[in-house]
């Protein structure tokens, strides 16, 4: 009982007549307050991320990592060989299925090693296609590029703060991403072909001149 009364007394005494600091010390105190509150703002943001995103991320990453281990990365080779066939029906395999599988199973930097199964003329286009997919995939499968999540998460944080569901945005991001990587692959393959043809022509001209 005495403890409670002491707190009560302390509370009633502590609140009223505190003068705000003035003069030089006042300015310093105000600056210090502004300094600390800048980082308090950051800390509040950090807590929001930690509580709102990290638990889901841990569970999701664990599930998908296990799935990747169960599927096994060896099977990609066969797909890569199929994807290097000429013909228009193999474009979607080369610049849509193969980049998706590569980024999903091998994740960000190692996905580009899948390019080794393709002939030289397709390699720049495959790289372009695979690297363009490392952000659209993070909406649903953050394991694929865990170092660069905030392109999507930053924007998504704004949406969820409005109380709107994220599923629609994540799915559309993924689907539009797939269309974009297909187009990007085809365009880059075309440009690579043109540049390679120009290279061989100039080489021939040099050979003739020499």
């Amino acid at each position, binding site marked *: 009982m005495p403890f409670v009364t002491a707190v009560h007394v302390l509370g009633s005494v502590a609140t009223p007549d505190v003068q705000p600091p003035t003069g030089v010390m006042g300015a310093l105190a105000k600056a210090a307050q502004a300094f600390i509150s*800048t*980082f308090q703002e*950051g*800390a509040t*943001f*950090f807590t929001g*991320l*930690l509580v709102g995103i*990290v638990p889901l*991320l*841990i569970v999701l*990453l*664990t599930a*998908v*990592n*296990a799935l990747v*281990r169960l599927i096994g990365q060896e099977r990609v080779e066969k797909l890569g060989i199929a994807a290097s066939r000429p013909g228009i029906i193999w474009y979607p395999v080369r610049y849509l299925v193969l980049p998706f599988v590569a980024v999903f199973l091998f994740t960000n*930097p*190692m996905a*580009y*090693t*899948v*390019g*080794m199964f*393709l002939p*030289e*003329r397709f390699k*720049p286009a495959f*790289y*372009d296609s695979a*690297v*363009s997919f*490392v*952000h659209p995939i993070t909406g649903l499968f953050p*394991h694929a590029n*865990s170092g*660069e*999540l*905030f392109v*999507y*998460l*930053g*924007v*998504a*944080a*704004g*949406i969820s*703060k*409005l109380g*709107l569901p994220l599923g*629609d*945005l994540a799915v*559309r*991001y993924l689907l*539009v991403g797939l*269309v*974009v990587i297909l187009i990007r692959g085809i*365009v*880059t393959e075309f440009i*690579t072909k043109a540049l390679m043809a120009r290279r061989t022509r100039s080489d021939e001209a040099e050979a003739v001149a020499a």
Partner: protein
Amino acid sequence: MSAEFTASPESPATAPQEEKRGAFDSFNDMLVRIGRAVGGVVGILYQAGRDSIETIIRNILPFMAFISVIVGIINKTGAGDALAHVITPLASSLPGLLGISIFCAIPVLSPILGPGAVIAQIIGVLLGTRIAAGDIHPQYALPALFAIDPQVGCDFIPVGLALGEAEPETVEIGVPAVLFSRLLTGPLSVVLAWLASFGLYQSS
């Protein structure tokens, strides 16, 4: 931990009892097989958990810390409001988004803007705070995601191609091929995303 399960039932210790094989031994074999399968799956799940925690600590938490400091400074110093005046009109109309994407795709700038996607991530967070504040309609989240990202991987082309075991000649051609391709496909991706964003977060 899977070492116990990898010992085969026909190991030297059990070989002398080979002639006494019967119902008990086949039952034992089955137990070993089930144990090995379960141990394998549990081992995979456990390793996956270990990997994901390591990813969180190594990649995700450091970036969260970095982003939190930036956001704190931007919000408190008022730089956020200044930036908002620049970003909001750009990010809430198709021509503005196309402008951003063309800027990011300029072949000289794209390799500079690329590394670690740091710039794209900071702008992503800034756009998020603007969307939360109601300055940008949530429908524009989708095209904006593509508008801030035409430079993705442009800093990494030689390394990425080398990972795919490309010849040096292919790298020489591949770098300009990808950079010029982005100039076309960057704005195109924004238009596609804009078209795909109809019906997204529309209030009825």
